[in-house]
Protein backbone atom coordinates (compact mmCIF):
# COMPACT_ATOMS: atom_id res chain seq x y z
CA UNK A 1 0.00 0.00 0.00
CA UNK A 2 1.26 3.47 -0.90
CA UNK A 3 2.07 6.14 1.64
CA UNK A 4 -0.51 8.90 1.28
CA UNK A 5 1.81 11.59 2.62
CA UNK A 6 4.38 10.76 0.02
CA UNK A 7 1.69 10.68 -2.69
CA UNK A 8 0.55 14.15 -1.62
CA UNK A 9 4.00 15.55 -2.32
CA UNK A 10 3.58 14.51 -5.98
CA UNK A 11 0.72 16.99 -6.44
CA UNK A 12 1.63 20.70 -6.74
CA UNK A 13 -1.99 21.70 -6.04
CA UNK A 14 -1.74 20.03 -2.64
CA UNK A 15 1.74 21.36 -1.90
CA UNK A 16 0.73 24.88 -2.90
CA UNK A 17 -2.62 24.81 -1.06
CA UNK A 18 -1.88 22.92 2.14
CA UNK A 19 -5.01 24.13 3.94
CA UNK A 20 -7.47 23.48 1.15
CA UNK A 21 -9.56 20.34 1.51
CA UNK A 22 -10.39 19.24 -1.99
CA UNK A 23 -13.40 16.92 -1.94
CA UNK A 24 -14.55 17.62 -5.49
CA UNK A 25 -12.71 14.85 -7.26
CA UNK A 26 -15.88 13.72 -9.00
CA UNK A 27 -15.67 16.99 -10.94
CA UNK A 28 -11.97 16.84 -11.70
CA UNK A 29 -8.78 15.53 -10.16
CA UNK A 30 -5.42 17.08 -9.35
CA UNK A 31 -2.45 16.43 -11.61
CA UNK A 32 0.82 14.95 -10.38
CA UNK A 33 4.06 16.70 -11.31
CA UNK A 34 4.83 13.90 -13.78
CA UNK A 35 1.81 14.87 -15.89
CA UNK A 36 2.71 18.55 -15.83
CA UNK A 37 6.30 17.69 -16.78
CA UNK A 38 5.17 15.56 -19.72
CA UNK A 39 3.08 18.44 -21.08
CA UNK A 40 5.79 21.00 -20.46
CA UNK A 41 8.35 18.83 -22.19
CA UNK A 42 6.15 18.62 -25.29
CA UNK A 43 6.06 22.42 -25.45
CA UNK A 44 9.70 22.92 -24.44
CA UNK A 45 11.35 20.22 -26.47
CA UNK A 46 9.31 18.86 -29.35
CA UNK A 47 6.25 20.97 -30.19
CA UNK A 48 4.92 19.79 -33.56
CA UNK A 49 1.71 18.60 -35.11
CA UNK A 50 1.29 14.86 -35.42
CA UNK A 51 1.08 12.70 -38.58
CA UNK A 52 3.19 13.12 -41.66
CA UNK A 53 5.79 15.48 -40.24
CA UNK A 54 9.15 14.29 -41.62
CA UNK A 55 11.37 16.10 -39.15
CA UNK A 56 12.66 14.84 -35.79
CA UNK A 57 10.41 16.78 -33.43
CA UNK A 58 7.30 15.77 -35.40
CA UNK A 59 8.38 12.16 -35.23
CA UNK A 60 8.86 12.54 -31.47
CA UNK A 61 5.37 14.01 -31.12
CA UNK A 62 3.95 11.17 -33.20
CA UNK A 63 5.65 8.60 -31.05
CA UNK A 64 4.52 10.20 -27.81
CA UNK A 65 0.93 10.42 -29.06
CA UNK A 66 0.92 6.80 -30.19
CA UNK A 67 2.54 5.75 -26.92
CA UNK A 68 -0.56 6.92 -25.05
CA UNK A 69 -2.67 4.40 -26.98
CA UNK A 70 -0.30 1.68 -25.80
CA UNK A 71 -0.36 2.81 -22.19
CA UNK A 72 -4.14 3.13 -22.07
CA UNK A 73 -4.54 -0.20 -23.85
CA UNK A 74 -2.38 -1.78 -21.14
CA UNK A 75 -4.38 -0.04 -18.43
CA UNK A 76 -7.77 -1.36 -19.60
CA UNK A 77 -6.55 -4.54 -21.31
CA UNK A 78 -7.18 -4.12 -25.03
CA UNK A 79 -5.29 -3.45 -28.26
CA UNK A 80 -3.88 -0.02 -29.17
CA UNK A 81 -6.13 0.25 -32.21
CA UNK A 82 -9.21 0.08 -29.98
CA UNK A 83 -8.32 3.35 -28.24
CA UNK A 84 -9.65 6.57 -29.84
CA UNK A 85 -9.00 10.06 -28.50
CA UNK A 86 -11.76 12.66 -28.58
CA UNK A 87 -12.30 16.02 -26.85
CA UNK A 88 -13.86 14.67 -23.65
CA UNK A 89 -16.15 11.87 -22.57
CA UNK A 90 -19.18 13.91 -23.61
CA UNK A 91 -17.83 13.88 -27.17
CA UNK A 92 -17.34 10.11 -26.90
CA UNK A 93 -20.91 9.50 -25.72
CA UNK A 94 -22.27 11.75 -28.45
CA UNK A 95 -20.17 9.85 -31.00
CA UNK A 96 -21.57 6.58 -29.71
CA UNK A 97 -25.20 7.72 -29.79
CA UNK A 98 -24.67 9.20 -33.25
CA UNK A 99 -22.84 6.16 -34.56
CA UNK A 100 -25.23 3.57 -33.15
CA UNK A 101 -28.23 5.82 -33.76
CA UNK A 102 -27.80 5.57 -37.53
CA UNK A 103 -28.87 1.95 -37.26
CA UNK A 104 -31.70 2.55 -34.80
CA UNK A 105 -35.26 2.89 -36.04
CA UNK A 106 -38.64 3.92 -34.73
CA UNK A 107 -39.71 1.52 -32.00
CA UNK A 108 -36.20 0.41 -31.10
CA UNK A 109 -35.34 0.79 -27.43
CA UNK A 110 -32.32 2.11 -25.55
CA UNK A 111 -32.08 1.29 -21.85
CA UNK A 112 -30.54 3.84 -19.48
CA UNK A 113 -31.07 4.64 -15.79
CA UNK A 114 -32.30 7.51 -13.63
CA UNK A 115 -28.80 7.87 -12.21
CA UNK A 116 -27.12 8.78 -15.51
CA UNK A 117 -25.22 11.99 -16.14
CA UNK A 118 -26.67 14.37 -18.77
CA UNK A 119 -24.09 13.22 -21.30
CA UNK A 120 -25.46 9.68 -21.18
CA UNK A 121 -29.06 10.87 -21.38
CA UNK A 122 -29.40 13.78 -23.79
CA UNK A 123 -27.74 12.16 -26.84
CA UNK A 124 -30.26 9.30 -26.50
CA UNK A 125 -33.13 11.77 -25.98
CA UNK A 126 -32.19 13.34 -29.31
CA UNK A 127 -32.60 9.95 -30.99
CA UNK A 128 -35.97 9.63 -29.33
CA UNK A 129 -36.98 13.01 -30.74
CA UNK A 130 -35.48 12.56 -34.20
CA UNK A 131 -35.93 8.86 -34.85
CA UNK A 132 -38.74 7.83 -32.55
CA UNK A 133 -36.76 5.35 -30.47
CA UNK A 134 -37.96 4.46 -26.96
CA UNK A 135 -35.98 5.27 -23.84
CA UNK A 136 -36.64 2.95 -20.93
CA UNK A 137 -35.12 2.97 -17.45
CA UNK A 138 -33.57 -0.04 -15.76
CA UNK A 139 -34.61 -0.71 -12.15
CA UNK A 140 -32.36 0.74 -9.44
CA UNK A 141 -32.55 0.53 -5.68
CA UNK A 142 -32.73 3.71 -3.58
CA UNK A 143 -28.94 4.11 -3.64
CA UNK A 144 -28.66 3.77 -7.40
CA UNK A 145 -27.57 0.13 -7.55
CA UNK A 146 -28.87 -1.79 -10.52
CA UNK A 147 -31.34 -4.50 -9.52
CA UNK A 148 -29.63 -7.19 -11.50
CA UNK A 149 -32.27 -9.83 -10.85
CA UNK A 150 -34.88 -7.64 -12.53
CA UNK A 151 -32.72 -6.62 -15.49
CA UNK A 152 -33.59 -9.55 -17.73
CA UNK A 153 -37.24 -8.46 -17.74
CA UNK A 154 -36.23 -5.14 -19.34
CA UNK A 155 -35.13 -6.89 -22.50
CA UNK A 156 -37.46 -7.59 -25.36
CA UNK A 157 -36.77 -7.70 -29.09
CA UNK A 158 -36.88 -3.91 -29.36
CA UNK A 159 -33.89 -3.35 -27.03
CA UNK A 160 -30.76 -2.65 -29.08
CA UNK A 161 -28.56 -0.79 -26.62
CA UNK A 162 -28.10 -0.50 -22.87
CA UNK A 163 -26.00 2.47 -21.77
CA UNK A 164 -25.00 2.79 -18.12
CA UNK A 165 -22.48 4.49 -15.89
CA UNK A 166 -19.98 2.05 -14.42
CA UNK A 167 -19.95 4.15 -11.24
CA UNK A 168 -22.78 6.69 -11.00
CA UNK A 169 -21.72 10.29 -10.53
CA UNK A 170 -23.83 11.38 -7.55
CA UNK A 171 -24.41 8.20 -5.56
CA UNK A 172 -21.28 6.29 -6.54
CA UNK A 173 -23.22 3.10 -7.17
CA UNK A 174 -20.95 0.56 -8.82
CA UNK A 175 -22.89 -1.31 -11.51
CA UNK A 176 -22.24 -5.01 -12.26
CA UNK A 177 -21.20 -4.36 -15.85
CA UNK A 178 -19.89 -7.89 -16.46
CA UNK A 179 -23.28 -9.39 -15.65
CA UNK A 180 -25.06 -6.64 -17.60
CA UNK A 181 -23.01 -7.58 -20.65
CA UNK A 182 -23.92 -11.25 -20.31
CA UNK A 183 -27.62 -10.52 -20.12
CA UNK A 184 -27.56 -7.88 -22.85
CA UNK A 185 -25.57 -10.05 -25.23
CA UNK A 186 -28.04 -12.91 -24.76
CA UNK A 187 -30.58 -10.49 -26.21
CA UNK A 188 -28.28 -9.21 -28.97
CA UNK A 189 -28.10 -5.75 -27.40
CA UNK A 190 -24.93 -3.66 -27.26
CA UNK A 191 -23.53 -2.43 -23.96
CA UNK A 192 -22.21 1.12 -23.67
CA UNK A 193 -20.42 2.12 -20.47
CA UNK A 194 -19.75 5.62 -19.16
CA UNK A 195 -16.66 5.01 -17.04
CA UNK A 196 -16.05 8.67 -16.12
CA UNK A 197 -16.32 8.04 -12.36
CA UNK A 198 -14.75 4.59 -12.49
CA UNK A 199 -11.51 5.25 -14.33
CA UNK A 200 -8.58 5.73 -12.01
CA UNK A 201 -10.64 4.47 -9.07
CA UNK A 202 -10.96 0.78 -9.95
CA UNK A 203 -9.16 -1.56 -12.29
CA UNK A 204 -11.07 -1.82 -15.56
CA UNK A 205 -10.59 -4.84 -17.82
CA UNK A 206 -12.67 -4.37 -20.96
CA UNK A 207 -12.01 -7.87 -22.19
CA UNK A 208 -13.14 -9.47 -18.95
CA UNK A 209 -16.21 -7.23 -18.86
CA UNK A 210 -16.91 -8.02 -22.53
CA UNK A 211 -18.26 -4.48 -22.91
CA UNK A 212 -18.90 -3.25 -26.46
CA UNK A 213 -18.11 0.45 -26.05
CA UNK A 214 -16.65 2.21 -23.02
CA UNK A 215 -15.42 5.75 -22.54
CA UNK A 216 -13.86 8.01 -19.94
CA UNK A 217 -12.18 11.38 -19.47
CA UNK A 218 -8.51 11.99 -18.89
CA UNK A 219 -9.05 14.77 -16.36
CA UNK A 220 -10.85 12.52 -13.89
CA UNK A 221 -7.82 10.22 -13.67
CA UNK A 222 -5.13 12.82 -12.88
CA UNK A 223 -4.62 13.58 -16.57
CA UNK A 224 -5.08 16.86 -18.43
CA UNK A 225 -8.39 18.34 -19.59
CA UNK A 226 -9.45 18.07 -23.20
CA UNK A 227 -9.13 14.35 -23.80
CA UNK A 228 -11.84 11.72 -23.83
CA UNK A 229 -11.02 8.10 -24.49
CA UNK A 230 -13.35 5.91 -26.52
CA UNK A 231 -12.76 2.17 -26.40
CA UNK A 232 -14.68 -0.17 -28.67
CA UNK A 233 -14.73 -3.69 -30.01
CA UNK A 234 -12.83 -3.24 -33.21
CA UNK A 235 -15.48 -4.42 -35.67
CA UNK A 236 -17.95 -2.07 -34.07
CA UNK A 237 -15.54 0.86 -34.33
CA UNK A 238 -14.98 0.02 -38.00
CA UNK A 239 -18.73 0.06 -38.67
CA UNK A 240 -19.44 3.25 -36.76
CA UNK A 241 -19.83 6.50 -38.71
CA UNK A 242 -17.66 9.28 -37.23
CA UNK A 243 -19.51 12.36 -36.00
CA UNK A 244 -16.67 14.67 -37.09
CA UNK A 245 -15.26 14.67 -40.61
CA UNK A 246 -12.07 16.45 -41.58
CA UNK A 247 -8.33 16.19 -41.70
CA UNK A 248 -6.49 13.23 -40.26
CA UNK A 249 -9.46 10.87 -40.39
CA UNK A 250 -9.84 10.31 -44.14
CA UNK A 251 -7.60 8.27 -46.43
CA UNK A 252 -8.68 10.06 -49.60
CA UNK A 253 -11.59 11.90 -51.18
CA UNK A 254 -12.50 12.86 -54.75
CA UNK A 255 -14.30 15.77 -56.36
CA UNK A 256 -17.30 13.56 -57.02
CA UNK A 257 -17.89 13.18 -53.27
CA UNK A 258 -16.22 9.82 -52.76
CA UNK A 259 -14.73 9.55 -49.26
CA UNK A 260 -12.55 6.74 -48.01
CA UNK A 261 -12.13 6.87 -44.26
CA UNK A 262 -9.10 5.71 -42.37
CA UNK A 263 -9.50 2.73 -40.11
CA UNK A 264 -10.26 3.12 -36.41
CA UNK A 265 -8.99 4.71 -34.25
CA UNK A 266 -7.88 7.52 -36.59
CA UNK A 267 -11.32 7.83 -38.19
CA UNK A 268 -12.64 9.27 -34.93
CA UNK A 269 -9.86 11.81 -34.55
CA UNK A 270 -10.65 14.53 -37.10
CA UNK A 271 -8.60 17.71 -36.86
CA UNK A 272 -5.56 18.42 -34.75
CA UNK A 273 -6.16 16.59 -31.49
CA UNK A 274 -5.23 17.78 -28.02
CA UNK A 275 -1.68 16.50 -28.43
CA UNK A 276 -0.39 17.88 -25.14
CA UNK A 277 -3.40 16.36 -23.40
CA UNK A 278 -2.96 12.94 -24.94
CA UNK A 279 0.74 12.98 -24.05
CA UNK A 280 -0.07 14.05 -20.48
CA UNK A 281 -2.66 11.28 -20.22
CA UNK A 282 0.01 8.60 -20.67
CA UNK A 283 1.95 10.07 -17.77
CA UNK A 284 -1.22 10.02 -15.65
CA UNK A 285 -1.98 6.41 -16.49
CA UNK A 286 1.60 5.34 -15.75
CA UNK A 287 1.47 7.23 -12.47
CA UNK A 288 -1.75 5.52 -11.38
CA UNK A 289 -0.56 2.06 -12.46
CA UNK A 290 2.65 2.57 -10.48
CA UNK A 291 0.66 3.33 -7.36
CA UNK A 292 -1.64 0.44 -8.18
CA UNK A 293 -5.33 0.67 -9.03
CA UNK A 294 -6.25 -2.12 -6.64
CA UNK A 295 -4.48 -0.31 -3.81
CA UNK A 296 -6.16 2.96 -4.76
CA UNK A 297 -9.53 1.21 -4.59
CA UNK A 298 -8.73 -0.40 -1.24
CA UNK A 299 -7.64 2.94 0.21
CA UNK A 300 -10.75 4.68 -1.12
CA UNK A 301 -12.93 2.01 0.51
CA UNK A 302 -11.14 2.55 3.80
CA UNK A 303 -11.55 6.35 3.53
CA UNK A 304 -15.20 6.03 2.71
CA UNK A 305 -16.05 3.73 5.53
CA UNK A 306 -14.25 6.07 7.96
CA UNK A 307 -16.05 9.05 6.42
CA UNK A 308 -19.53 7.55 6.40
CA UNK A 309 -19.28 6.30 9.99
CA UNK A 310 -18.52 9.83 11.15
CA UNK A 311 -21.20 11.41 8.96
CA UNK A 312 -23.84 8.97 10.22
CA UNK A 313 -23.22 10.19 13.76
CA UNK A 314 -24.33 13.73 12.87
CA UNK A 315 -28.03 14.37 13.36
CA UNK A 316 -28.12 17.40 11.09
CA UNK A 317 -27.42 15.51 7.86
CA UNK A 318 -29.37 13.27 5.55
CA UNK A 319 -27.20 10.87 3.53
CA UNK A 320 -28.49 9.41 0.27
CA UNK A 321 -25.91 6.68 -0.27
CA UNK A 322 -24.83 5.35 3.15
CA UNK A 323 -24.14 1.80 1.97
CA UNK A 324 -22.00 2.44 -1.09
CA UNK A 325 -18.60 0.78 -0.83
CA UNK A 326 -16.47 3.50 -2.40
CA UNK A 327 -17.23 6.77 -4.13
CA UNK A 328 -18.76 10.10 -3.13
CA UNK A 329 -20.95 10.87 -0.15
CA UNK A 330 -24.16 12.56 -1.30
CA UNK A 331 -25.99 14.39 1.45
CA UNK A 332 -27.88 17.44 2.60
CA UNK A 333 -27.66 19.38 5.81
CA UNK A 334 -31.25 19.34 7.03
CA UNK A 335 -33.14 22.54 6.27
CA UNK A 336 -30.30 24.18 4.32
CA UNK A 337 -30.15 24.55 0.56
CA UNK A 338 -27.25 22.50 -0.84
CA UNK A 339 -25.60 25.43 -2.57
CA UNK A 340 -25.60 27.42 0.67
CA UNK A 341 -23.81 24.55 2.40
CA UNK A 342 -21.18 24.52 -0.36
CA UNK A 343 -20.68 28.29 -0.13
CA UNK A 344 -20.32 28.06 3.64
CA UNK A 345 -17.78 25.24 3.31
CA UNK A 346 -15.83 27.29 0.80
CA UNK A 347 -15.31 29.94 3.48
CA UNK A 348 -13.74 27.16 5.57
CA UNK A 349 -11.42 26.28 2.69
CA UNK A 350 -13.31 23.15 1.71
CA UNK A 351 -14.21 22.40 -1.91
CA UNK A 352 -17.31 20.34 -2.65
CA UNK A 353 -19.95 20.41 -5.35
CA UNK A 354 -23.64 21.12 -4.83
CA UNK A 355 -26.72 21.05 -7.00
CA UNK A 356 -28.04 18.28 -9.19
CA UNK A 357 -24.60 17.32 -10.55
CA UNK A 358 -25.92 17.06 -14.14
CA UNK A 359 -28.01 14.06 -13.05
CA UNK A 360 -31.35 15.82 -13.46
CA UNK A 361 -33.55 12.76 -13.49
CA UNK A 362 -32.01 11.33 -10.32
CA UNK A 363 -34.65 13.09 -8.23
CA UNK A 364 -37.02 10.37 -9.46
CA UNK A 365 -34.97 8.00 -7.33
CA UNK A 366 -33.77 9.92 -4.26
CA UNK A 367 -36.64 12.40 -4.01
CA UNK A 368 -34.55 15.58 -3.86
CA UNK A 369 -33.27 17.82 -6.63
CA UNK A 370 -30.23 19.18 -4.87
CA UNK A 371 -27.52 17.63 -2.81
CA UNK A 372 -23.97 18.21 -1.63
CA UNK A 373 -21.41 15.79 -3.03
CA UNK A 374 -18.13 15.14 -1.27
CA UNK A 375 -15.96 13.07 -3.59
CA UNK A 376 -12.56 11.87 -2.44
CA UNK A 377 -9.51 10.40 -4.13
CA UNK A 378 -6.43 8.49 -3.04
CA UNK A 379 -4.58 11.67 -2.03
CA UNK A 380 -7.22 12.63 0.54
CA UNK A 381 -6.72 11.78 4.20
CA UNK A 382 -8.60 10.87 7.36
CA UNK A 383 -7.40 14.14 8.91
CA UNK A 384 -9.21 16.00 6.13
CA UNK A 385 -12.33 13.94 6.81
CA UNK A 386 -12.13 14.87 10.50
CA UNK A 387 -11.97 18.57 9.68
CA UNK A 388 -14.75 18.22 7.11
CA UNK A 389 -17.14 16.43 9.46
CA UNK A 390 -16.38 18.97 12.17
CA UNK A 391 -17.36 21.82 9.83
CA UNK A 392 -20.52 20.01 8.75
CA UNK A 393 -21.51 19.62 12.40
CA UNK A 394 -21.24 23.43 12.71
CA UNK A 395 -23.21 24.16 9.54
CA UNK A 396 -26.34 25.96 10.68
CA UNK A 397 -28.74 28.15 8.75
CA UNK A 398 -27.39 31.18 10.65
CA UNK A 399 -23.81 30.26 9.79
CA UNK A 400 -24.62 29.87 6.09
CA UNK A 401 -26.35 33.26 6.07
CA UNK A 402 -23.49 35.03 7.84
CA UNK A 403 -21.33 34.27 4.83
CA UNK A 404 -23.26 36.90 2.91
CA UNK A 405 -23.36 39.63 5.56
Amino acid at each position, binding site marked *: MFDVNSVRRDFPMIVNNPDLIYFDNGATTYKPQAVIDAITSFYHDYTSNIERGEYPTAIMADKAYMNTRKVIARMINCQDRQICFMGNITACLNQIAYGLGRDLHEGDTVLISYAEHASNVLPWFRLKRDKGINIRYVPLDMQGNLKLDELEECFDDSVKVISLAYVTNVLGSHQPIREVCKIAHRHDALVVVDAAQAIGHIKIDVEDLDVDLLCFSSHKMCGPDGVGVLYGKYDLLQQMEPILLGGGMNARFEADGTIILKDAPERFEAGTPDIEGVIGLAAAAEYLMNIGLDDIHEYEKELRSYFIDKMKKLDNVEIYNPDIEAGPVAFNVKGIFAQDVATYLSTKNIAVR*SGNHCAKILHNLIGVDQSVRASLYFYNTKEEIDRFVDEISKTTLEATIDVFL
Partner: protein
Amino acid sequence: MANIKELFNDQALMRELLLDHYQYPHNHELVQDGTYLSKHMASASCIDDITVQADIEDGTIRDLRFDGVACTISTASTSIMTELLKGKTVEEAKRIIGEYMKMINNEEYDSEALEEANVFQNVYKQANRIKCATIGWDAVKEIIEEKENNG
Protein backbone atom coordinates in the same frame (compact mmCIF):
# COMPACT_ATOMS: atom_id res chain seq x y z
CA MET B 1 -29.45 61.36 11.56
CA ALA B 2 -28.22 57.84 11.10
CA ASN B 3 -27.48 56.85 7.56
CA ILE B 4 -29.57 53.87 6.49
CA LYS B 5 -26.41 52.13 5.41
CA GLU B 6 -25.12 52.25 8.97
CA LEU B 7 -28.21 50.51 10.27
CA PHE B 8 -27.17 47.58 8.15
CA ASN B 9 -23.87 47.25 9.92
CA ASP B 10 -25.63 45.35 12.67
CA GLN B 11 -24.86 41.75 11.82
CA ALA B 12 -27.49 40.24 14.10
CA LEU B 13 -30.19 42.46 12.63
CA MET B 14 -29.18 41.61 9.07
CA ARG B 15 -29.13 37.90 9.79
CA GLU B 16 -32.57 38.15 11.38
CA LEU B 17 -33.91 39.95 8.32
CA LEU B 18 -32.49 37.41 5.87
CA LEU B 19 -33.65 34.45 7.92
CA ASP B 20 -37.12 35.90 8.13
CA HIS B 21 -37.41 36.44 4.40
CA TYR B 22 -35.97 32.98 3.69
CA GLN B 23 -38.11 31.03 6.12
CA TYR B 24 -41.27 33.09 5.68
CA PRO B 25 -40.96 34.66 2.25
CA HIS B 26 -43.41 37.44 1.51
CA ASN B 27 -45.75 37.37 -1.49
CA HIS B 28 -44.75 33.76 -1.97
CA GLU B 29 -47.75 32.45 -3.86
CA LEU B 30 -48.61 32.68 -7.52
CA VAL B 31 -52.09 33.55 -8.72
CA GLN B 32 -54.10 32.28 -11.67
CA ASP B 33 -54.94 35.64 -13.15
CA GLY B 34 -54.51 36.62 -16.78
CA THR B 35 -53.82 40.25 -15.96
CA TYR B 36 -50.53 39.26 -14.33
CA LEU B 37 -47.39 39.13 -16.41
CA SER B 38 -45.19 36.19 -15.57
CA LYS B 39 -41.52 35.31 -15.93
CA HIS B 40 -40.08 31.87 -15.29
CA MET B 41 -36.36 32.13 -14.57
CA ALA B 42 -35.49 28.50 -15.24
CA SER B 43 -32.67 28.78 -17.71
CA ALA B 44 -30.56 31.32 -15.84
CA SER B 45 -28.95 28.54 -13.82
CA CYS B 46 -29.64 24.88 -13.28
CA ILE B 47 -30.12 25.42 -9.57
CA ASP B 48 -32.55 28.22 -8.80
CA ASP B 49 -35.95 27.92 -10.41
CA ILE B 50 -38.10 30.98 -9.73
CA THR B 51 -41.28 32.34 -11.26
CA VAL B 52 -42.18 36.00 -10.72
CA GLN B 53 -45.60 37.52 -11.43
CA ALA B 54 -46.41 41.21 -11.71
CA ASP B 55 -49.66 43.08 -12.07
CA ILE B 56 -48.77 46.35 -13.77
CA GLU B 57 -51.55 48.79 -14.51
CA ASP B 58 -51.48 52.51 -15.38
CA GLY B 59 -47.73 52.62 -14.97
CA THR B 60 -47.83 51.21 -11.43
CA ILE B 61 -46.79 47.84 -10.04
CA ARG B 62 -49.95 46.89 -8.19
CA ASP B 63 -48.89 43.44 -7.13
CA LEU B 64 -45.76 41.33 -7.24
CA ARG B 65 -45.47 37.65 -6.32
CA PHE B 66 -43.11 34.74 -6.71
CA ASP B 67 -42.64 31.04 -6.14
CA GLY B 68 -40.05 28.38 -6.77
CA VAL B 69 -37.14 26.39 -5.44
CA ALA B 70 -34.14 28.51 -4.53
CA CYS B 71 -31.32 29.15 -2.11
CA THR B 72 -31.45 31.54 0.85
CA ILE B 73 -30.14 34.49 -1.11
CA SER B 74 -32.43 34.02 -4.13
CA THR B 75 -35.47 33.55 -1.93
CA ALA B 76 -34.75 36.39 0.48
CA SER B 77 -33.70 38.85 -2.22
CA THR B 78 -36.82 38.17 -4.27
CA SER B 79 -39.03 38.36 -1.19
CA ILE B 80 -37.55 41.72 -0.17
CA MET B 81 -37.85 42.95 -3.74
CA THR B 82 -41.58 42.20 -3.89
CA GLU B 83 -42.12 44.29 -0.76
CA LEU B 84 -39.96 47.11 -2.03
CA LEU B 85 -41.39 47.44 -5.52
CA LYS B 86 -45.04 46.78 -4.82
CA GLY B 87 -47.02 50.00 -5.20
CA LYS B 88 -44.17 51.81 -6.95
CA THR B 89 -44.55 53.35 -10.37
CA VAL B 90 -42.68 51.61 -13.14
CA GLU B 91 -40.29 54.57 -13.33
CA GLU B 92 -39.56 54.40 -9.59
CA ALA B 93 -39.13 50.64 -9.82
CA LYS B 94 -36.64 50.99 -12.65
CA ARG B 95 -34.58 53.42 -10.63
CA ILE B 96 -34.61 51.18 -7.55
CA ILE B 97 -33.62 48.15 -9.63
CA GLY B 98 -30.78 50.19 -11.12
CA GLU B 99 -29.53 51.21 -7.66
CA TYR B 100 -29.78 47.61 -6.46
CA MET B 101 -27.72 46.36 -9.38
CA LYS B 102 -25.09 49.01 -8.63
CA MET B 103 -24.89 47.79 -5.04
CA ILE B 104 -24.63 44.16 -6.11
CA ASN B 105 -21.79 45.09 -8.46
CA ASN B 106 -20.04 46.97 -5.65
CA GLU B 107 -20.50 50.40 -7.24
CA GLU B 108 -21.64 53.66 -5.59
CA TYR B 109 -25.39 53.55 -5.04
CA ASP B 110 -28.22 55.34 -3.30
CA SER B 111 -28.77 53.32 -0.14
CA GLU B 112 -31.86 55.34 0.86
CA ALA B 113 -33.71 53.95 -2.15
CA LEU B 114 -33.09 50.34 -1.26
CA GLU B 115 -34.46 50.13 2.28
CA GLU B 116 -34.34 46.47 3.44
CA ALA B 117 -32.52 45.45 0.27
CA ASN B 118 -29.40 47.04 1.75
CA VAL B 119 -28.99 43.74 3.54
CA PHE B 120 -27.37 42.41 0.34
CA GLN B 121 -24.63 45.05 0.32
CA ASN B 122 -21.90 42.46 0.86
CA VAL B 123 -23.10 39.75 -1.49
CA TYR B 124 -20.61 40.95 -4.09
CA LYS B 125 -17.89 39.36 -1.96
CA GLN B 126 -19.25 35.91 -2.91
CA ALA B 127 -18.72 36.39 -6.63
CA ASN B 128 -20.26 33.12 -7.72
CA ARG B 129 -23.47 33.91 -5.84
CA ILE B 130 -24.23 37.31 -7.36
CA LYS B 131 -26.72 35.70 -9.71
CA CYS B 132 -28.66 34.40 -6.72
CA ALA B 133 -29.13 37.94 -5.45
CA THR B 134 -30.35 39.21 -8.81
CA ILE B 135 -32.49 36.41 -10.25
CA GLY B 136 -35.82 37.79 -8.97
CA TRP B 137 -34.83 41.36 -9.77
CA ASP B 138 -33.87 40.36 -13.31
CA ALA B 139 -37.27 38.74 -13.71
CA VAL B 140 -39.08 41.97 -12.83
CA LYS B 141 -36.74 43.94 -15.06
CA GLU B 142 -37.60 41.66 -17.97
CA ILE B 143 -41.32 41.86 -17.21
CA ILE B 144 -41.14 45.67 -17.25
CA GLU B 145 -39.18 45.68 -20.50
CA GLU B 146 -41.67 43.35 -22.15
CA LYS B 147 -44.56 45.46 -20.91
CA GLU B 148 -42.96 48.60 -22.33
CA ASN B 149 -42.14 46.97 -25.65
CA ASN B 150 -45.62 45.58 -26.05
CA GLY B 151 -47.28 48.83 -24.99
